[in-house]
């Protein structure tokens, strides 16, 4: 839709992008509000119809302005703002205003059809400060109605304390209005909330402004100088927060930051919680995998999209191997679980019975992790605060995951080698489903006695189906394929009689001497070869259709005709064009690929001419 805005990194609804104007503006961006009126900046406000008087004059002003400032600056088209609760009384003809050249911004009002623009401004955004539900509703409505490759500007609402959250819900552009107003009201802003200047005994900041003066000196300045100093500090605080948030997006842990930062104000916490309930919205932008640790560090971690997605995919896509005995195990601090001391001990205790046993790990916040998926993000990538105590909500969530699993999948026998909260969970679920679970633990799960108990229990139970080493490896790759591409994908890309090479965890599957997949341990995902891709393409999932060209290196969004909307950033995708097929890694989600006019869509790994 735009030649002037490009998104290049995403995390949930947050994203990093660039407004490609007279100078490149990195987003998320905090606009110095007053520069909108200063025709020298990269973004210029054409003004309000209230002041211009009528649409003809507005049209004239717009034309003149565009001539004056050129195409590479963004004009906010003449607007006539109401307030959110006002009845709509804007002349229809105002919406027809367009600038035939150059970048434009438009005020967005719910319910009005939207003409093309590079930037949309949420009308009356500032009214929704402290109203989490209303703000989220408005932003979701707006996101539903604007293309992904346009920028979203929330005017007049930003403070250092809420900036991270505003970006997290999807803002690309914010402004300094509140920072300035606060300064002139003698309010001192920080990422941790605002202070009345009069109440401060020192300046809790080391910005270049605050480093130059003491609290008492500042308090004793005349009003204008004082306000100017405060304004500088407030804007510094906002820009520092902005830069931090940008770096947090880059490093893949904005969620962790927001999880803490939202505790500054109840409405921000409410916003986080409400946003998590808009799973579709936030999951769409959440990469399938990351190479940083995921911290599950508050009660609200149970609902973060990575956790919910993992649980849902287990529920919807996972098929257990054909074994009769289920062993439930506790998680370990070290990841993947199987390299931890405790799991190595469990393995030794199982010994020759291991081939009879399907292992499933119980954990908070992920719920359950079948052994085959222990490498899959975030199962091998999370860390939690360990106190030994599980709260009721954790217990509930994990129980629900286990309950869902046990009600779908039947075993001849279920053994749980667990203690404490893990055991309580097993008991609750067993009770609810009327299942018998054998508990083997006495004291500590790694004590000699407990481990001996486990061995003995298995000795008695393990008489049914078994799975040899090759099958076990194959079932791991299949489970990952199903997790990644959907149920049934595993059978295709890891057919029966596949050969599995490589040491754990660097497995590679071969079929009739041809390599089809490689397990990438860092992410716990499968990379597919071109031959694998050829087998997967008929499944018609994760497909990206491209135009009539020979792709190489990476594919840009404009070259894409259509893409599976289920594709997520980081997904393995199959490229199908008239000239070639290929396989690569998605750099944006499928909807963005289909709709965007700018940006890297796919890092191609293999191509094969048709």
């Amino acid at each position: 839709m735009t030649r002037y805005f490009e998104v290049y990194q995403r995390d949930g609804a947050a994203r990093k992008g660039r407004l490609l104007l007279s100078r490149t503006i990195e987003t998320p961006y905090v606009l110095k509000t007053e520069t909108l009126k200063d025709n020298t900046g990269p973004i210029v406000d054409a003004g309000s119809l209230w002041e211009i008087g009528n649409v003809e004059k507005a049209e004239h002003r717009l034309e003149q302005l565009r001539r004056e400032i050129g195409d590479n600056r963004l004009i906010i088209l003449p607007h006539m703002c109401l307030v959110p609760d006002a009845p709509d009384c804007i002349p229809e003809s105002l919406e027809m205003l367009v600038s035939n050249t150059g970048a434009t911004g438009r005020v967005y009002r719910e319910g009005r059809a939207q003409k093309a623009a590079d930037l949309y401004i949420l009308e009356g955004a500032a009214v929704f400060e402290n109203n989490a539900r209303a703000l989220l509703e408005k932003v979701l409505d707006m996101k539903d109605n604007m293309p992904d490759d346009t920028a979203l500007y929330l005017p007049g609402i930003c403070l250092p304390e809420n900036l991270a959250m505003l970006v997290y819900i999807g803002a690309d552009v914010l402004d300094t209005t509140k920072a300035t107003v606060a300064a002139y009201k003698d309010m001192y802003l920080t990422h941790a909330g605002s202070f009345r200047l009069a109440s401060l005994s020192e300046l809790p900041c080391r910005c270049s402004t605050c480093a130059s003066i003491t609290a008492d000196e500042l308090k004793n300045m005349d009003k204008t100088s004082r306000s100017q100093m405060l304004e500088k500090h407030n804007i510094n605080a906002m820009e520092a927060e902005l830069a931090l948030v940008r770096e947090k997006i880059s490093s893949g842990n904005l969620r962790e930051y927001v999880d803490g930062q939202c505790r500054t104000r109840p409405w921000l916490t409410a916003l986080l919680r409400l946003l998590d309930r808009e799973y579709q919205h936030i999951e769409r932008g959440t990469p399938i995998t990351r190479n940083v640790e995921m911290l599950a560090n508050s009660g609200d971690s149970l609902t973060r999209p990575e956790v919910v997605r993992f649980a849902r995919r287990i529920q919807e896509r996972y098929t257990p191997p054909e074994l009769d005995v289920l062993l439930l195990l506790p998680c370990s601090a070290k990841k993947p679980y199987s390299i931890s001391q405790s799991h190595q001990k469990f393995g030794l205790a199982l010994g020759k019975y291991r081939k009879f046993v399907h292992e499933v790990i119980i954990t908070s916040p992920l719920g359950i992790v079948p052994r085959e998926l222990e490498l899959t993000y975030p199962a091998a990538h999370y860390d939690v605060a360990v106190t030994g105590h599980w709260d009721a909500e954790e217990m509930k969530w994990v129980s629900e995951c286990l309950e869902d699993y046990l009600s779908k999948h039947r075993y001849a026998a279920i053994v749980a080698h667990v203690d404490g909260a893990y055991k309580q969970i097993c008991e609750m679920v067993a009770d609810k489903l009327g299942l018998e679970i054998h508990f083997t633990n006495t004291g500590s799960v790694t004590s000699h006695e407990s481990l001996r108990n486990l061995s003995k229990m298995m000795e008695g139970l393990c008489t049914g189906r078994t799975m040899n080493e090759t099958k076990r490896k194959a079932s791991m790759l299949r489970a990952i394929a199903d997790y990644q591409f959907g149920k049934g994908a595993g059978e295709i890309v890891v057919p029966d009689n596949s050969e599995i090479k490589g040491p754990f965890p660097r497995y590679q599957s071969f079929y009739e001497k041809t390599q089809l997949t490689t397990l990438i341990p860092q992410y716990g995902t499968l990379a597919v070869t071109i031959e694998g891709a050829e087998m997967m393409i008929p499944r018609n999932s994760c497909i990206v259709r491209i135009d009539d060209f020979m792709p190489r290196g990476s594919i840009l969004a404009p070259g894409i005709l259509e893409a599976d909307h289920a594709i997520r950033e980081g997904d393995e995708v199959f490229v199908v064009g008239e000239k070639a097929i290929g396989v690569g890694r998605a750099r944006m989600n499928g909807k963005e690929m289909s709709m965007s006019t700018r940006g890297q869509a796919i890092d191609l790994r293999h191509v094969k001419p048709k």
Partner: protein
Amino acid sequence: MSLNTKVLEIRQRQRIKPTPLDMPSAVWTGKDHVDGNVENTLTMIFRTSGCWWGKVGGCTMCGYVYDSAHTSPSAEDIVSQFRKAMGKASKFDRFMVKIFTSGSFLDEKEVPVDALSKILSLLEEDDRVFKVVVESRPEFLTEESMEFCLASLKSTLLEVAIGLETSSDLIRKRSINKGFTFRDFVRAAEVAKSNGVAVKTYLMLKPPFISEKQALEDIIASVREVSVYSGVISINLCNVQKGTLIEYLWERGEYRPPWLWSIVDILKRTKQEFPHLIITSDPVGAGAKRGPRNCKECSGEVADAIRAFSLSQDLHDLEGLECDCRSLWEKVLVLDDLSFGSPILE
């Protein structure tokens, strides 16, 4: 939903209490600047059947409709209201009378012709009354109505007051929902003028949706355009009246009454430009949360200066006003223009 429908919807939620039909809504005495002198005034607001425009929706800031009677007062009731009101002026030797209804004094549906002629005759007969000001929407300001009034009111001066609010048709229509145009006003003013009747114009600072700066500049432009037709301009500062769209928005953080600094600025600039024009403003409710205001420190003092100037028409009365909040107001002028649909609440 149109503006009119929304205003009507809000109106219909209000309850109007039954009131005696022979008692005026309000009466008070005060002082006004009249033709170069400070004079006593008696202001009376009649309870009538109410503003016809207000009954079908009406202006976004107007809560006066709730002062109307639940059934139409008769001509006798209205005259009786007038007599009771005049009682308040017993202490005066000389005074001016200002007559308002919650709508138009010249609308026959509100004030029957019998009552109108009786009241004007009684005023003509009272020697203490040197001038009468009546308020009306422009559609009732016709050759006929003027002649009718002047027939009763011979030697006593007559002035008609019109609530134009702004010279911008866009704002009057889409923000205020006033229901007439600037052209309508001009026509009415010219009719008055040609009948030798003075015209007083009410303007309205800061209707909804308009930024502080836009509102300020709109009034300056309006004074300029109105000065051609009207020798007296009174600038009302919008306040949050019960049962109005403004109140509905204000409760949701979507409206802030004007700053007193804005009216100070308007008075200074317009009086300098039009020294012979009488420009007044009564900062009703100044400093209250529903009223026009600066900060808590200075609102009282600044409002007093505005009142003093309105009486004296002397710009010295507006000098020397200073407060820390003035620099905030200056920033608000800039930023409120760039907030895209939300007022800067402070």
